[in-house]
């Protein structure tokens, strides 16, 4: 084993070792046995039917959200507004359910999902349009829109949509049973799991097997390269924003139609932010991201379990969770840096030469030659 090959291993040792050392110290300071606590996280998340049930239920929205984020982030469209899209999706689905209380479920349930898809897409198109039209940073716009959505939802559940029999609880009345997504047996696992898996597989297929996926990556490489190949980066940005928002909306609809059966304040539980962490942990690659979904969902559920079992304040599991994830992110980063070269998902690196990319694109009907106006001065650097 050469030194070059062992450097990524050293990075993992540093990042993960640091995280584990922090975990050990922190738990020891709290006067608990770190191994029992860690065992309890695993058992709590994956070891029992109840735990596994909760973990998968948590992973469903994460799958949908991170599938959408993969597309957006691969095009370097930094959509951090999926929490808002998810909230708006939940609101839209709830609205359809609340205003048609007596309609048949076979009609309303699909309408709930469709409206969530549409509203979520529209919500994420706002930052995309502002970027395409004005060059405005999508980060700040999508971030602000998260709070706009949350305020709208919080307002609705304490006013017009409030459950009259809710004893002051900020939430709507429970939907009628016809509007619930089917569940697997007596578990919490609902049809949303299928949507999530399909979405993730579809995103993987699109990114790895289609010209459109290559375009997404090329736009992510830099607008100039894409423009040179005749790709409209505006169209790609709008598409990835719309699809990611739609999937975010669907995640929200899944929470209200599949899990809670009503709209509550704080329905997203910040999963739209957690998903950003998940795709980063998954190195922006679909399969790794799917694994990261399950792992992070497990940590969230296991952490809650531990705090109940050991009588620890919820802040403790919070500190541990985020400190560990901080360590992992750093380990991944150092492993990439010290290995040298580009991260493996970059198509230019994967496909070999730029000529291969060009010929693949030229074979597709949408490709055009270099445009005028992008002269040598653009490429001289």
């Amino acid at each position, binding site marked *: 084993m050469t030194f070059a090959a062992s450097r990524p291993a050293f990075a993992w040792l540093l990042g993960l070792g640091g995280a584990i050392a922090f975990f050990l110290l922190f738990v020891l300071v709290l006067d608990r046995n770190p191994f029992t606590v860690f065992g309890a996280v695993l058992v709590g998340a994956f070891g029992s039917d109840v735990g596994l049930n909760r973990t998968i239920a948590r992973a469903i929205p994460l799958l949908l959200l991170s599938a959408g984020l993969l597309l957006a982030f691969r095009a370097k469209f930094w959509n951090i507004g999926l929490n808002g899209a998810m909230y708006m999706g939940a609101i839209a689905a709830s609205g359809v359910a609340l205003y048609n209380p007596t309609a048949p479920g076979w009609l309303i349930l699909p309408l709930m999902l469709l409206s969530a898809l549409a509203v979520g897409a529209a919500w994420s198109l706002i930052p995309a349009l502002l970027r395409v039209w004005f060059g405005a940073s999508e980060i700040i716009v999508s971030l602000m829109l998260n709070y706009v959505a949350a305020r709208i939802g919080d307002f609705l559940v304490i006013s017009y949509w409030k459950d009259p029999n809710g004893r002051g609880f900020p939430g709507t009345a429970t939907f009628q049973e016809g509007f619930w997504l089917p569940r697997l047996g007596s578990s919490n696992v609902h049809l949303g799991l299928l949507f999530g898996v399909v979405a993730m597989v579809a995103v993987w297929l699109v990114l790895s097997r289609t010209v459109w996926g290559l375009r997404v990556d090329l736009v992510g490489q830099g607008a100039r390269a894409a423009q040179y190949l005749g790709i409209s980066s505006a169209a790609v940005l709008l598409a990835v924003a719309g699809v990611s928002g739609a999937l975010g909306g669907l995640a929200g609809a899944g929470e209200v139609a599949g899990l809670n059966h009503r709209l509550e304040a704080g329905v997203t539980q910040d999963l739209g932010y957690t998903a950003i962490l998940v795709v980063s942990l998954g190195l922006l690659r679909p399969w790794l991201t799917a694994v990261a979904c399950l792992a992070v969902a497990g940590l969230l559920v296991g952490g809650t379990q531990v705090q109940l079992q050991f009588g620890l304040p*919820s802040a403790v599991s919070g500190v541990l969770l985020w400190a560990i994830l901080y360590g992992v992110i750093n380990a991944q980063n150092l492993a990439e840096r010290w290995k040298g070269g580009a991260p493996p998902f970059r198509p230019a690196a994967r496909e070999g030469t730029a000529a291969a990319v060009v010929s693949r694109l030229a074979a597709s009907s949408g490709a055009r030659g270099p445009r005028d106006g992008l002269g040598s001065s653009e490429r001289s650097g």
Partner: protein
Amino acid sequence: MTAVTALLDPGSVEMGVIIAFVAAVVRSGAALLPATLGAIVTERSGATNLGVEGLMLVGAVAGFAAASQSGSPVVGVLTASAAGGLLCVTHAIPVVQGRVSPERQLVLGLILVYLGDALSRLFGQPYVGHSSAALDTRFAVPLLADVPVLGEMLFQQRGLVYWSYGLAVAVWFVLYRTRLGLHLRAVGEEPAAADALGVRVDLYRFGAIVVGGMLMGFAGGVLSLSTIGAWTEGLTGGRGWIALGLVTFANWHPLWAIAGTLLFGGFEAAQFRLPAAFPGAQYLLGILPYLAPIATLPLITARMRGRSAAPAALGRPYFREARG
């Protein structure tokens, strides 16, 4: 006519309401402003830090605890700044030394939000509902406080309020009137050019992130010791996110940040003065601080083409060999 004279009469009821409102606006803005300045300093160096909300929470607890132990609000805010700066070292190391990709930079900022929240809940537990902290006290500026209307509006505030607005002027001075500030802006704009001129890009970015964190921590201290005067979990209530929006709204300029802060402080102050019978209007006002940056961003980026101060290298790691 009588209404107008009544309004202009410093002693009238109407004038009293207006004076109290403006004073409340200035007070509300005091906790928002240092956080905004912190984000401006950070972003001017080309680094991002989404963790404002978490850093404010940590600052709020640290400040409250230190003021309780020491009996001095000044010790409180200084501790709050130190806590914010210290926590930001964990952000600066991967962002500057680790040269993380843009999406990891966002993720690390978000981790800081949640880590800060969890830390503040952990260490703040004994201080929930605690009232023995030495809170910020009112300070009437000599002479100025006696100016009829303006004095009551601006110069009879609590002590830390003056610090906040003073910091904005200080940050402006450093950014625009010193070599240090020129270098910092160059690093955020054209790191390769700055590097070629011998400016140590990494050092400036590291420093900007840590100083930015100190300002965010300071803002938390102002919030718990002055604006609200208590510690509860989730005390910031979204102010950290609003501060991030304010950076854009103020076009990355410390003095414009004062104007933006007063406007946003106005939204906050008005929220508590609306009749409770219209919760919708309250929520609408609560949304405005988030909508305002969205509404103005296109104007800033399109209409002011070339004059937008958004740092060109924002969020991009700097590799010397890549030259930009």
